[in-house]
């Protein structure tokens, strides 16, 4: 049996859980989902509807409202002994916070951020910032895993698993106490280190167009904004936007180059990006040689369409 620790906001289940369930389903054996929260019937229901889930365990208590690692780990440990071979969580802020605690208490290793399941005891995970992938086998009786969501498809909906209330583990006495939360407003991430970067070039024609076309897209994707030197020189954006040899060096998971031809100096600043998208009207632009996905066409039509095709955050 496999237990997946759900990621949710009490009212509903978060998509990270769907990706983790897909990974869990590859391990062999029925997949149970633990929803630990407060007034979290909505989330439990959401978990029950994920295809491939056999049962939802629902632990509900006030101290699980803003759950600490200590309390969540205690809850996982409380249900873990009932025959689970794998304890799985999405590799989110919460999963990373909780699961090593669980593993240490069980005296087993954790395998972090798996990107593939080879067999029930063998997994692939990135090391050295994704510059290498290790295949590791765990010899422990219980496998504690966190799952990189982007490596597994989201499990579909349409399931109807039973929801079972489980006893709540008592609050840990010597644990952290959450005293406040600030959710980030739509402040954009910094260029260096951002997961997604959108850069604009001379093809945008003006600073006004740059803002009008790129900012809404960046808002949708929570992306940082960058620019080619040509766009900086033309005064569309300030100097610190510049990506390239003499600007910032970025290697995001997704880099979207808009109206950038791809001078070698620009490529030097972004060519290590994991996925590169290029949008340009000139099919011969050098940027297309390194782009994974090139889209030739009028960026004034493409950009609004692309923005509209993405869900608002």
């Amino acid at each position, binding site marked *: 049996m496999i237990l997946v620790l759900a990621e949710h906001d009490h009212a509903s289940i978060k998509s990270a859980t769907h990706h983790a369930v897909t990974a869990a389903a590859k391990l062999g054996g029925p997949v149970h989902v633990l929803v630990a929260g407060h007034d979290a019937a909505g989330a439990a229901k959401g978990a029950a509807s994920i295809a491939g889930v056999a049962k939802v365990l629902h632990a509900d208590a006030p101290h699980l409202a803003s759950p600490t690692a200590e309390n969540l780990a205690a809850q996982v440990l409380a249900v873990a002994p009932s025959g689970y071979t794998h304890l799985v969580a999405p590799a989110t802020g919460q999963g990373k916070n909780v699961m090593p605690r669980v593993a240490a208490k069980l005296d087993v290793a954790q395998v972090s951020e798996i990107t593939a399941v080879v067999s029930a005891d063998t997994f692939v995970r990135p090391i050295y910032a994704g510059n290498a992938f290790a295949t590791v086998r765990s010899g422990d009786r219980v496998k504690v895993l966190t799952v990189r969501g982007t490596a597994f498809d989201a499990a579909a909906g349409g399931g109807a698993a039973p929801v079972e209330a489980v006893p709540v583990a008592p609050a840990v006495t010597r644990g952290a106490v959450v005293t406040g939360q600030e959710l980030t407003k739509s402040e954009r991430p910094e260029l260096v280190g951002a997961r997604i970067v959108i850069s604009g070039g001379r093809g945008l024609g003006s600073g006004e167009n740059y803002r009008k076309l790129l900012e809404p897209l960046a808002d949708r994707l929570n992306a940082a904004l960058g620019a080619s030197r040509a766009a900086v020189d033309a005064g569309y954006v300030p100097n610190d936007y510049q990506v390239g*040899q003499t600007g910032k*060096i970025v290697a995001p998971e997704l880099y979207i180059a808009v109206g950038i031809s791809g001078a070698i100096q620009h490529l*030097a*600043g972004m060519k290590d990006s994991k996925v590169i998208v290029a949008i340009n009207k000139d099919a011969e632009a050098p940027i297309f040689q390194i782009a994974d996905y090139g889209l030739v066409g009028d960026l004034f039509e493409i950009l609004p369409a692309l923005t509209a095709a993405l869900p608002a955050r």
Partner: protein
Amino acid sequence: MSSYRAPLEEMSFVLNELAGLAGVAKLPGCGEADPATVAAILEEAGKFATDVLEPLNRTGDLRGARLLEDGSMRMPPGFRDAYWKFVEGGWNGLAKNPEYGGQGLPEVVAAAVEEMWHASNMAFDLCAMLTQGAIEAIERNASPELKALYLPKMVSGQWTGTMNLTEPQAGSDLAAVRTRAVPQPDGSYRITGQKIFITYGEHDYTENIVHLVLARLPDAPEGVKGISLFVVPKFLPDAQGKPGARNDLRCVSVEHKLGIHASPTCVMSYGDGGGATGFVVGEPNRGLEYMFVMMNLARYSVGLEGVGIAERAYQRAVAYARERVQGRAVGLEKGAKPAAIIEHPDVRRMLMTMRAQTEAIRAVAYVTGAAMDHAKREPDAEARKRHQAFVDLMIPIVKGHSTEVAQEVASLGIQVHGGMGFIEETGAAQHFRDARITTIYEGTTGIQANDLVGRKTARDGGAVAKSVVGEVAKVARRLGGSGDSALKAIGSRLAAAVATLDRTIDWLVSNAGGNARVALAGSVAYLRMWGVVAGGWQLARAAEIAAAKLAAREGDAAFLQAKVTTARFYAEAILPWVDAHAALATGGGEAAVALPAERF
């Protein structure tokens, strides 16, 4: 994209294996310089160079230092902050006397660290370099009172120093200095005159700037024996060292230069309001003599600038050559994918030339640095003298040859980039422009060569030069007899080169007197010859040591193998230049001085 990384593995190899760091660490006062500590120092200095200094290098080039209406200097953005980080890091005092707050580390360690400053931001480091010269001049010659008042602040970097030698009519010929110094009843002097080419003569880093100024007393004899050295601070410190009244001196303009734009090169005017207050250093009329002692160190530092810029240009060229994809590599199967240009043989030839020459000048510089430590600190006077003789011979070579090599390496760096190298944004052009001053200031290559021919070779009948030649020949013989084919090849080429140098010394010793014009016309060729042979000598030693380590399965095999290969390339492709230089050095200069001046 290339960002400077201090070549730590290479530096450690040269320090430990060639310059004999362990031996230096055994000298009195050098006990702190154990290999582990030196490695930690180099590592942190490398971080500082990469993270703090290099990011400012291009900004400094683009923005430059600007003189404002009010007479103050606006330094490029970030430079002041970086300077204070440098001072707070304690870097300014690395090799300075602990008595004044320095760390007292050996020169050879300072050499490696300085190379990093030069490589990452030469214009920035000039400030510290000039301060170092001023410290040296004060420490060696000034009264205890002046030392106590000025040295602690200059060693820490709280105050900076400058060297005011040149005047419009007095460039390489300092005997022509006209700045006046008139004694005052209180023992001070009133200084009036104009100085040019004053590096960091004005800036916004520090609360005070200490100018060392060459000037003439009213009753001074003509020529070189009538020049005195003065401390002339921008603000006159009180007894506690707090800067007080503004002295009567100012920067009246800043030069527009080919390179090192961030380093303010000032025209300084003394005494526009009646006279600046100065304090004599040591005895009157001995200023030039003091300057020349100090100048050894300054010339050595400029040689290190050559090493630093060459290294930087090399790193940038390698990074580009790895990245730039053009054409298909020759000799690979048909249908192969387009190759990075590093796969093309001629690009290889250029990169190897850059690499081998850079490693050679570094090794010669560090070995000379270690000799400076021995010359200063050996307990035995004879040993000190022996090392000093070697240092005196090598200084014009380190200065003259390293900086000339830097021109070639920086130029090849542009060439590797092709058209992109000619574009400023790529960065290769800046190294070329920055490097250009190094063969000029602190004595042009011609001046170094004169020194090498006259004072360093002919004067003692070639004795010191011959003793070094003997050392080189010994290494050449050892390698020539090696069973290893690479070492054998290196040894035989080096033997031929050093034999040519030996004959050239003989020719010079017998002709420098009677045939001085011809000898001096070939003097730069003689200096370059020395540089090439000395580099071959050190790279041969490096190859020998690397081969021994490889045989013993010690250390980083890829690094050591590259050492052997680089030395072999040098022996085969660089050492042959010795023949061409020899032709010019031994009488080939006759035509150079034959044409009547009016035919030009």
